């Protein structure tokens, strides 16, 4: 039989696709396993896990990852026993499944990196699987057939006509493996039909031309035979007929099969029989209604639509400027166009949106592992895992969330004795939830543990030199200390966490996403972290402000309010800075015009506006601008494609009039301001008047 040959490029491409699929399948497997562990799983979860393992096995077989296939086999066998109710899903089995899933995904990783696993890799787990299987049956996957044997009549004969569609190989299927699998069921005679094979010149190596007529003598039910074709049955014409169970017909079948011409006469499948098998695929084709698209293509689409939005806004503005207001038909047309473009943009952005589930689903497992290690009883409650976020955001969320959940179990929840002593239920609860809030998502990580001990936090911070001794801090400021670099409160550095890189990394990751982290804690009652994260990194809700002739965009999420201060609300402080008092609070003022060297801008805050900003660390800042132009959703453009990074500017966008406007990097403003203050002090030989207060 000619095996399909592929160029190395194609093979690499197939392999890539296989591993992409593996990633998805393993994520699904993990999630289902979590459901099982929470005892909320049902037979469907088991089926899904089985399907995942089986799919990976099928692909791994095609690429010759024999260790992976071997392991998958055993894994599958145990799952199959569970599925048939022949084994019980008890603690031991569950532990074995979890361990097997780990080994399984490690094997996939090794295969992906092109490394072969050590000989004894996962041997203990494999033994445990075997032991569980041995408990009430043989460990071989053939156990399936064997176990069913009592219900099945002695020996049956099936005639199987398998006629793959031309695309079969392109979906990473390989008939040879199917035939081998059939062979494992019983005695198989195979006859290959070459009639569809074209001349050599017309041959396309990617297409499947061969069909097979097979006779199988086996002690198994029709469903078992059909199962072999589970992954190809929507890509072929398949007939499975039970011919007879009598020796007489066996003889007849035997007479037919070796003769090639006879096989050629029977390529037409019986539609009724095909219909019988196709029923089983209905559930699967529903899952096929999605396609895999290269992210780069989606990004291009997002960019193009971004351009379209800008072009549309420019056109509309020019139209309004150059036409009478009376041209209502034209105006209406533009409004319609604007509506359509906005909708188009939303649709395109939605392509990149994915439910948070892919990140959340890792957490139950994490909680189980960490609580096991720390000997605590912890229950994880999750809500809102269907909340959708941009794919890039999801990827960046995995690390910080993992860290926070681990922290919550390790540091947040007390050990059982302490909980009971405090009159709490022995089992701690961690709640992970997500919800939309405007153009942001809110993610809460909440525990009912001991809460932050402010005295201890402060003592630790002083000990580590993060804050000077004797400093006076508010309760919230002390809570904020956990985000300080190099801070870790765990009394002992545990295996789990407490290595001193912690919440500061979380905060940095979240800030890199344009988000914020806040913490609220009550001693003895628990801690709640709130992450505020933009839905997407490609657009930004901005406030357009004017400074002199220039326009800047401030991220709307950071803006608390804006106000025009009275002269009495403002005073200079030594060193060249200014502060404004607002409702008893003092905020530092930063003049965008001075910082960015913009001429002809309003210099007196009481003549312009102060935009009050909240920084990621919770502190506030007043930015002095000339005026607010308005709120606008802007498409973020990189400035760094063609230019070096500009301090204080995070990106750029294009306004409706076609001009570029810069997006202000608020977090960097303070640092920039400090630098320029120092520079100013050095440069100004005559000391400035220190107090200018009327």
């Amino acid at each position: 039989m000619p095996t399909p040959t592929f160029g190395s490029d194609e093979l690499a491409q197939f392999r890539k696709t296989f591993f992409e699929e593996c990633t998805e399948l393993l994520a699904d497997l993990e999630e289902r396993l979590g459901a099982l562990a929470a005892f909320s799983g049902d037979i469907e979860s088991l089926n899904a896990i089985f399907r995942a393992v089986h799919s990976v096995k099928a692909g791994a077989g095609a690429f010759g990852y024999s260790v992976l296939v071997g392991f998958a086999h055993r894994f599958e066998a145990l799952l199959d026993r569970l599925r048939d109710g022949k084994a019980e899903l008890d603690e031991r089995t569950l532990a074995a499944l979890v361990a097997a899933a780990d080994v399984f995904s490690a094997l996939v990783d090794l295969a992906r990196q092109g490394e072969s696993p050590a000989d004894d890799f996962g041997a203990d787990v494999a033994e445990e699987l075997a032991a569980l299987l041995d408990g009430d049956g043989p460990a071989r996957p053939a156990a399936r057939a064997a176990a069913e044997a009592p219900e099945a009549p002695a020996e049956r004969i099936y005639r199987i006509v398998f006629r793959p569609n031309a695309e079969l190989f392109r979906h990473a299927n390989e008939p040879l493996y199917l035939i081998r699998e059939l062979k494992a069921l019983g005695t198989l005679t195979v006859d290959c039909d070459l009639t569809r094979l074209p001349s050599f010149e017309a041959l396309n190596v990617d297409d499947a031309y061969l069909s097979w007529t097979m006779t199988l003598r086996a002690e198994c039910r029709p469903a078992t035979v059909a199962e072999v074709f589970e992954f190809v049955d929507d890509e072929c014409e398949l007939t499975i007929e039970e011919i007879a169970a009598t020796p007489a017909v066996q003889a007849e079948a035997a007479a037919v099969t070796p003769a090639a011409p006879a096989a050629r006469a029977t390529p037409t499948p019986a539609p009724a029989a095909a219909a019988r098998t196709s029923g089983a695929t209905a559930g699967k084709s529903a899952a096929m209604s999605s396609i895999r698209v290269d992210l780069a293509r989606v990004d291009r689409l997002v960019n193009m639509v971004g351009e379209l939005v800008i072009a549309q806004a420019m056109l509309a503005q020019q139209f309004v400027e150059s036409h009478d207001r009376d041209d209502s038909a034209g105006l209406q047309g533009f409004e319609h166009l604007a509506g359509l473009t906005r909708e188009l943009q939303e649709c395109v952005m939605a392509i990149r949106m994915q439910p948070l589930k892919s990140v959340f689903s890792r957490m139950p497992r994490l909680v189980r592992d960490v609580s096991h290690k720390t000997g605590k009883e912890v229950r994880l409650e999750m809500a809102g895992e269907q909340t959708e976020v941009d794919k890039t955001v999801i990827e960046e969320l995995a690390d910080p969330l993992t860290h926070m959940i681990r922290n919550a179990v390790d540091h947040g929840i007390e050990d059982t004795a302490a909980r009971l002593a405090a009159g709490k239920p022995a089992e701690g609860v961690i709640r992970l939830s997500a919800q939309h809030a405007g153009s942001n998502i809110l993610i809460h990580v909440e525990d009912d543990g001991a809460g932050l001990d402010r005295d201890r936090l402060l003592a630790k911070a002083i000990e580590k030199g993060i804050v000077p001794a004797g400093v006076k801090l508010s309760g919230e400021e002390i809570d904020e200390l956990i985000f300080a670099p190099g801070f870790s409160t765990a009394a002992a550095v545990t295996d789990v966490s407490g290595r001193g890189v912690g919440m500061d990394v979380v905060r940095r990751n979240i800030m890199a996403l344009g988000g914020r982290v806040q913490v609220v804690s009550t001693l003895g009652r628990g801690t709640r972290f709130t992450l505020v994260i933009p839905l997407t990194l490609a657009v930004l809700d901005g406030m357009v402000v004017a400074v002199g002739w220039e326009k800047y965009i401030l991220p709307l999420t950071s803006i608390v309010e804006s106000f025009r201060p009275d002269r009495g609300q403002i005073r200079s402080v030594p060193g060249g800075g200014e502060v404004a008092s607002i409702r008893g609070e003092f905020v530092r003022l930063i003049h965008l015009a001075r910082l960015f060297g913009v001429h002809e801008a309003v210099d007196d805050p009481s003549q312009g506006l102060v935009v009050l900003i909240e920084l990621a660390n919770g502190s506030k800042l007043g930015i002095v601008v000339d005026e607010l132009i308005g709120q606008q959703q802007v498409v973020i453009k990189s400035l760094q494609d063609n230019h070096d990074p500009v301090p204080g500017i995070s990106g750029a966008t294009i306004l409706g009039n076609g001009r570029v406007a810069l997006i202000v990097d608020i977090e960097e403003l303070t640092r920039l301001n400090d630098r320029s203050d120092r520079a100013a002090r050095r440069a100004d030989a005559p000391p400035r008047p220190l107090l200018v207060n009327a």
Partner: protein
Amino acid sequence: MAEPQDPSSTGTDAGAAASQTRQFISFRVGDDEFAIDIMAVREIKGWTETTILPNQQEYMLGVLNLRGTIVPIFDLRCRFGLGLTTATRSHVVIIVSIGGRILGLLVDAVSDILTVNAADIRPVPDVDQPVDSAFLAGIIAVGDSMVVLLSLENLFSHHGPADTAVAA
């Protein structure tokens, strides 16, 4: 579009490629004629107002929107240390591609396309001048006047404050 060939190599090995002809775009800054490799030029457009980038070198005029791409614009006259150009609509911006980046050069006017035999490109003699000679790639005699060839790579490899820090 194909990656433009390295304009900095222009004319340095004149002898080796004597029979080769190359094309340049010549333009005027003040009273002087300059030329750059035509392969680096993406397009030529009239001057429009830019958006000022904060805290940049004086010759960095800000950024333009070129069909959705943010393009930084540099004042060549100012880069040569001859003071800022008072740009009007009749001034011209040459959009060039250097080392994967797109940027614009503000000049007074574009003059001509020169087809030059590589052998006719002469090295620039060491002279005392306000302009750093590193970005002068050669001199071509055109008729009875001289055109100075610019090496764009050397001209813009050390602009901006971040460069040196990264290199160190």
